[in-house]
């Protein structure tokens, strides 16, 4: 059989950098091939090449062909004919991948109208059929709705419906579940598998997640710095990774462990953070519904939940950024409710936050040294010299080179930037660190080192930590105790191993079951 997509010695250059070098592989009809790699590995550039969607600055050599026809030398008209028809694409961000001003029905049938020239009435019927195919409830109502009226998972189903509309031989899916919650991710992966089984469509799956690979792929291609370093059967690759990079990638994936870690050194004094019956309303929407939880001195509490569960709001309540409508918030025994002005600022200074996206939480016009010293300036701690010395200490503590002090955020990598955020958070020697998804924007190997850093700093400095994350494996790797949030309430909390190995709540069980485990055999049994 002719492969549906074939890469032959493909290289793509942008200026002086080679994004993809000498990549060769083929995708057979009906096959699911995963391309894994970290950011900058060239996996997305390879994906865009299959549709001729590279920016005009790209220099391409070698060839990518579809059913034997080279895509790289097609005319614009031939390319248009190929796109959506022979090869379709599913993108990462379902929130922005749909036009906000057009109805779902119009967009789902758009490809058919473009390629088959069918009538409006026919297109409407087809849209309905496609929405049913991808399992969207109430398709009759949904066709007339606009993207903002659908949830993220439903929007991704719509994007997939568009992709299969013209019955393509291949779907190229670029991180199709990265922006989604784990339970939704599991559904979308199941849908992709079902569509392959029913329609025989081959899928090229671009992902950074070994869990997703294990769940869906037949074959895996590992890319590193633009090159294919390993290409093999999914079971074979997970059990006997040949290349050192593949091994390190697999090792970096956080896994559930049953091993018992030494508990936190019993701290003294009042709880670092104590929430009692906290309720938060945003207008008519109740974001948090009576949450009671405690972070003991020297303890790491992992707060897990999906988007909209209220976990981020809890983090903001803890430092007084959001005022609860009811309930009490105590930071080291001091009630935050009712505190204002200077008193609130002083109390708040005992807690520090690390945010998710280091690219946007650092001021691009401030040097690393100034960024780290800023909390001390705001709290009027020490003089200029002392602050500089402290910043240098902190840079050292988070294992950044000392010349980083005079650099700007854009000169640093994502992992380095997150280290700066951590250093800034530690500037005032806080008793409580609140980390909201601090590693979610990072590659797995970087994530592993940042987690390791957090753990060793915590052991050394003994601060308490509220660690907020959607990633159960990450929480498992770090937390002493775990609280699970669902729809604004804590549904389960307890010792880490207890919650993760013997969950009592149905939602916790569903959440755990949905986590893609980087083990294809275990995955297929589910």
């Amino acid at each position, binding site marked *: 059989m002719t492969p549906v997509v074939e890469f032959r010695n493909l290289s793509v250059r942008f200026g002086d950098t080679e994004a993809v070098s000498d990549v060769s592989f083929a995708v057979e009809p009906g096959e699911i091939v995963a391309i894994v790699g970290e950011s900058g590995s060239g996996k997305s550039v390879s994906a865009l090449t299959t549709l001729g969607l590279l920016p005009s600055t790209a220099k391409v050599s070698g060839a990518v062909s579809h059913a034997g026809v080279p895509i790289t030398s097609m005319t614009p008209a031939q390319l248009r004919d*190929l796109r*959506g028809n022979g090869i379709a694409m599913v993108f990462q961000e379902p929130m922005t991948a749909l036009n906000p001003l057009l109805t779902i029905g119009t967009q789902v049938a758009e490809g058919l109208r*473009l390629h088959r020239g069918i009538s409006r009435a026919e297109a409407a019927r087809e849209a309905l059929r496609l929405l049913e195919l991808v399992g969207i409830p109430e398709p009759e109502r949904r066709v007339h709705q606009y993207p*903002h*009226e659908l949830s993220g998972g439903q929007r991704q189903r719509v994007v997939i419906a568009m992709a299969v509309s013209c019955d393509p031989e291949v779907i190229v899916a670029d991180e199709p579940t990265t922006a989604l919650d784990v339970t939704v991710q599991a559904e979308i992966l199941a849908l992709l598998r079902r569509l392959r089984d029913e329609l025989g469509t081959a899928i090229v799956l671009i992902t950074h997640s070994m869990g997703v690979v294990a769940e869906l792929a037949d074959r895996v291609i590992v890319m590193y710095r633009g090159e294919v370093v390993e290409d093999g059967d999914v079971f074979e690759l997970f059990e006997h990774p040949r290349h050192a990079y593949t091994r390190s990638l697999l090792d970096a994936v956080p896994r559930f462990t049953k091993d018992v870690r030494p508990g936190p050194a019993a701290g003294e004094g009042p709880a670092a953070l104590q929430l009692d019956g906290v309720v938060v309303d945003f207008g008519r929407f109740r974001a948090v519904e009576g949450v009671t939880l405690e972070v003991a001195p020297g303890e790491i509490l992992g707060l897990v939940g999906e988007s909209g569960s209220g976990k981020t709001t809890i983090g903001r309540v803890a430092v007084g950024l959001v005022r609860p409508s009811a309930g009490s918030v105590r930071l080291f025994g001091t009630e935050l409710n009712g505190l204002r002005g200077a008193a609130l600022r002083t109390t708040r200074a005992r807690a520090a936050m690390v945010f998710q996206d280091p690219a946007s939480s650092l001021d691009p016009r401030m040097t690393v040294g100034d960024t780290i010293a800023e909390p001390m300036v705001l709290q009027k701690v020490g003089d200029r010299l002392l602050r500089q010395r402290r910043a240098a200490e902190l840079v050292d503590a988070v294992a950044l080179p000392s010349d980083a002090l005079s650099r700007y955020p854009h000169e640093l990598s994502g992992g380095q930037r997150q280290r700066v955020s951590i250093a800034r958070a530690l500037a005032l020697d806080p008793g409580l660190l609140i980390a909201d998804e601090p590693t979610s924007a990072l590659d797995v190997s970087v994530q592993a080192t940042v987690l390791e850093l957090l753990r060793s700093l915590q052991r050394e400095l003994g601060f308490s930590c509220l660690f907020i994350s959607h990633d159960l494996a990450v929480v498992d790797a770090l937390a002493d105790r775990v609280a699970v949030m669902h729809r604004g309430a804590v549904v389960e909390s307890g010792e880490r191993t207890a919650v993760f190995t013997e969950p009592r709540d149905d939602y916790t069980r569903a959440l755990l079951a949905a986590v893609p485990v980087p083990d294809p055999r275990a995955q297929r049994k589910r």
Partner: protein
Amino acid sequence: MTRYVGVRLLQAIVVIFIVVLIVFFLLHRIPGGPARGILGQQATQQQIDDFNHAQGFDLPLPVQFGRYLGQMVTGDFGDSYVENQRVGDLVADRLPKTLVLTGLATLLALLVAVPLGVFQAVRRGRASDHVLSMVNFVLYSTPVFFLGFVLIIVFAQRIPLFSAQAPQGGTLVEILSDPRGLALPVITAAAGMIAVFSRYLRSSVIDNLHEDFVRTARAKGASEPYLLRKHVLRNSLTAIVSMIGYYIPVAFGGALVVEQMFNYPGMGLLFWNAAQRSDFPVLLGVVFVIAVATVLGSLLADIAQRLIDPRTRKVTP
């Protein structure tokens, strides 16, 4: 939607009240007052006092303001000091003419700016884009009166294509039936708008061209003209729609100069003449109309935005 409009109308009334309040007190703080302006330099103090008493200007300002408000809500804006007419009648006569002028100018501006902005966005970074951007900046930075003079010299005197005098007819029909006279005032008023709108549209189209949904549509096999028409332009126009609403006060400001320049019998000319002669009731009346138009403009823009953009409508999950 009804509730939304209701709340916005209430806000509008408050805003208009505050505007009238501020302008009223500012006008009555002008040294000399209207008496000197109207009665002239030769008037004796006795004559001025008599005038002030007759007009109620010797009463405390808040009382005067109360009186004015009381008349205003009944639709009575007082009489012009200078012309022997009621302010309401003057404004009612001039307002439609100004609306025709600014309306035509806005229409012309859109007809030129939309294709121009899209063209520049598509050709961004190329020579044609740079040249057009330069023309744009020249248009934008040219003072209206100067542009008007240049246009008159070139298109009315050197090449007598149009008339340097605006239509003088008393009715809208007479004005509209004189396109040779209308052309230059409309073009002059439109020039600034063309520069702003096309600049705005250019960046809006560029932003939208980079949107994920445009990439999605491209990956479906859509051609570039189709993408522009179906996905980019509508998303870009929402921005322009609200811009037009907020542009109303600027357009009136432009009309002030243009009308004076071409002797166009609109509200701008009325305002200009009234300001020269301290004709306070007329000034207040015109300010009131502009305040209403401004508030109404932004309200209409917001409503239009809601109609175009489904995201601002009520969510039905």
